[in-house]
């Protein structure tokens, strides 16, 4: 089920609120959350609900074993983390491995009939973070499997993040406060996310799809418009989901950490990754990069660490080599920044710093979007004008030109300008009312667009 479906908005959500607030008891409320989360998950692929139940039971049990058998902690952790990784590997990467081997060795292997369970990358990483945190003594393992289940399967962040670590909501699982103020703040955040997804991300998506589905034969202008649209789409799509997840969490009394902090205003690639998908980058930092030695190792080892971390980051996003290329591309940029680029860039005007970083995003998303390696070169060529500049009429022919004002909306929306403005305006009663009217209008408009439009899943569902 997706947040932008009518079933979710008008059947699932009201029913969930009713069932949830019917009970006063915390335990019962957690049980309600677990049940509706499993129902939410089973909506798309009922068979795979078994996987998440197995994951809940397994990780709950392993965490308890970790504290009970201290002599075997390391082995138990290895088994626990290994089991999670094997599960992820089997369901996500079997096809990729077999396909790659087949291409490399021409073995003519049959393609495995394994479908990717939605959100497996997210809940597996949450489970791993839980086990490691228990092992490190950062959290006390949850003794109640239903409570742990409510954490791991919580529908608000189940299928596209953010990757919420147990320690972030450890207290709230057992004692949290739901109240009207929190509920409405959550509703506001949810409405904002809905608008970002339905109005901006989907519009940008339609532009990107129309241009990029033509193949790399367009002129430079359409190619840049296409990838710029995709650059905005992926940000608004994913950050919208995070907004909705954070908003939903808040309605139920949870406070998830922010997952995005206006990444496109970054002045360096390093800063970008501090602002983009924060829960994932901090996961990789805390559970892979630092255990590997981080940057407190020899330069050669550090380069290897970077390659490993960014290769895995890429692969986490999808079972295709273009994602690995995308990850390594960022690894290379970050390494260059650390070694010399940052020093150079600090000497140039800020506008040039921004320009460089924005260009690096756009090229980065090219590797991300174009899965077919043979087309990547073609698109790079198109962007530098191998087919000429292209006439704006081509955009017209592709029926995207009339949406150009959305680029301005998206560009402004990618900066904290509107958010800061709203913060100031809300300080006055009238301003507050206006902001709420605006939120209400966004909510109605988004619902109408959903009712009129078709199904548009979130990009990050596939990861």
């Amino acid at each position, binding site marked *: 089920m997706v947040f932008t479906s009518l079933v979710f908005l008008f059947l699932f959500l009201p029913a969930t609120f009713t069932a949830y607030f019917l009970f006063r008891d915390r335990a019962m409320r957690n049980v309600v959350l677990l049940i509706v989360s499993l129902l939410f998950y089973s909506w798309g692929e009922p068979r795979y609900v078994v996987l998440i139940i197995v994951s809940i039971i397994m990780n709950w049990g392993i965490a308890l074993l970790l504290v009970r058998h201290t002599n075997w902690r390391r082995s138990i952790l290895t088994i626990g983390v290994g089991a999670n990784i094997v599960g992820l590997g089997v369901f996500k990467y079997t096809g990729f491995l077999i396909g790659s081997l087949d291409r490399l060795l021409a073995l003519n292997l049959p393609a495995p009939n394994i479908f990717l369970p939605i959100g497996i990358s997210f809940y597996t990483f949450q489970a791993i973070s839980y086990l490691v945190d228990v092992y490190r003594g950062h959290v006390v393992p949850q003794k109640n499997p239903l409570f742990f289940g409510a954490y791991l399967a919580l529908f608000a962040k189940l299928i596209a993040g953010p990757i919420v670590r147990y320690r972030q909501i450890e207290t709230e699982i057992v004692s949290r406060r739901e109240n009207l103020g929190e509920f409405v703040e959550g509703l506001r955040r949810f409405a904002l996310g809905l608008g970002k997804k339905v109005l901006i991300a989907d519009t940008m998506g339609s532009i990107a799809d129309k241009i990029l589905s033509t193949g790399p034969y367009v002129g430079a202008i359409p190619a840049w418009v296409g990838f710029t649209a995709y650059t905005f789409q992926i940000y608004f799509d994913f950050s919208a989901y995070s907004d909705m997840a954070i908003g939903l969490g808040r309605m139920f009394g949870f406070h998830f950490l922010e997952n995005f902090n206006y990444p496109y205003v970054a002045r360096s690639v390093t800063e970008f990754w501090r602002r983009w998908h924060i829960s994932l980058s901090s996961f990789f930092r805390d559970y892979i990069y630092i255990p590997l030695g981080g940057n407190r190792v020899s330069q050669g080892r550090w380069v290897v660490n970077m390659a490993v971390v960014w290769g895995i980051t890429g692969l986490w996003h999808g079972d295709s080599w273009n994602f690995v290329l995308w990850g390594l591309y960022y690894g290379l940029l970050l390494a260059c920044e650390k070694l010399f680029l940052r020093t150079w860039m600090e000497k140039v005007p800020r506008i040039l710093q921004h320009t460089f970083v924005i260009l690096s995003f756009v090229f980065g998303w090219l590797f991300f979007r174009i899965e077919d390696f043979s087309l990547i070169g073609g698109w790079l060529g198109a962007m530098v004008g191998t087919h000429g500049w292209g006439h704006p009429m*081509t955009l017209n022919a592709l029926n995207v*030109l009339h949406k150009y004002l959305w680029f301005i909306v998206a560009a402004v929306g990618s900066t904290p300008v509107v958010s800061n403005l709203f913060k100031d305006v809300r300080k006055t009663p009238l301003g507050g009312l206006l902001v709420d009217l605006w939120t209400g209008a966004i909510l109605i408009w988004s619902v109408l667009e959903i009712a009129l439009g078709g199904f548009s899943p979130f990009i990050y569902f596939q990861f």
Partner: protein
Amino acid sequence: MKNLRTRNLFLISLSVVLMFTAWAGYCRVLGIQTHILSDTSTDLSRILGRTPAFPRPTLHRFLSGTFQARMENAAGDSIPFLEQVIPFLTYWKTLFYELSLEVLPRSWSPALPVGGKDYVRIRGKEQLLRTPVIYNTEIIKQMYKAANYYNKIATRWPEVRFYVFAILAKEQVLAETRIWPAAPTQLLQGHKAVDQFKALLQNSVAYDWAGKGRPAGEVLAFYYNTDHHLTMPGAYEAYRQLHHLISARGIDIGKVVQCKKWFVVPNVVFRGSRSRRSGGYESATDKLVDGLFALPYHKVTIHGSGQGQARNKRLQYEAGDIPSGHFVNHYGEYFGGDHGLIEYVVDQVSERRNLLVIADSFKNCMEPLLAAHFSHSYFVDLRHFADDLGYSFNLDAFISENGITDVLFLGSVTTVMGDKTGQEFQERAD
């Protein structure tokens, strides 16, 4: 604090209203009468082509995912404000987009041509153009459906000859021949799609498209500069192709009607459909050219509501009685407008065959040429048939009642390859 509470209540109330509206919609699908909201009184099942209803929940359905899929469908069908909202939202969105395009150079915008200086210069010549149709997956699916329909009727009527003849829009020709400015290669799929259509048709259905195999420059001359139709010389070339298509099936329909001379209809300044739609493009004009053809004697009857009208006004124009007005549709006036059913009767034919032409306005100027080879020719325009005749067109009944020996589907690519007209055919065939 009070303000905070008021604002909170506002958002909560709004959410409740939205949810209530949705629930009312669901009740409507469930058959529970809801009088609180305005009902569209529209038959949902007729619009949707399926009965909107919530599925019965069973474990098997749930596990197989069909319950969920049907629930999504039912929820989508259940918003009671949907139909009223569509025109409202579409209107404002269109207005917004149109206004935003006003800021851009006119030559970029999709409603080309849109103003005084808006033209595209191709090979040194001003051209008024619209954007070409892009052959995307959806259109290709429609083509498969259309081809399936033609094959089906050809199988049902083995004794009748079937022909399909497509006319590309000028922009499609341009895109295909890489003349369209900055056209990406994908736009050239028009050519491939049009050609691929042949492969989808069984041998008993003859198929061709206007200008095929001819140099692009020549084919461009088939069209008016300011109108989407073929000029008379262009239509004549298309007719010659059609004559070849029919003759190649071993049918003796006589020789091609010869054109004794071409002449420009005097005192006519033609600003065609593209000029009219442009909102006043004036600098580009066309000449109305006609031919003097060696046609056999023929009788023309317009059936239905157009009965008694003159099919064309050549004599009227010749007499100098020319409709005035800046944007007069001289194509429609001179060659005759669109009617549901027009019948031509010709006695001097080499073989007594009856032709049914199902076509759009592209046929208007070539009617007498095609009719010259058949004893009875019926030209049907499905867009007008039911209105003009008072009953719906039925292909099977028409063939059997009028002894039709040859059926020609003629028109723009989008018509003959599966737009609404093609869909209507298919529905009747099913």
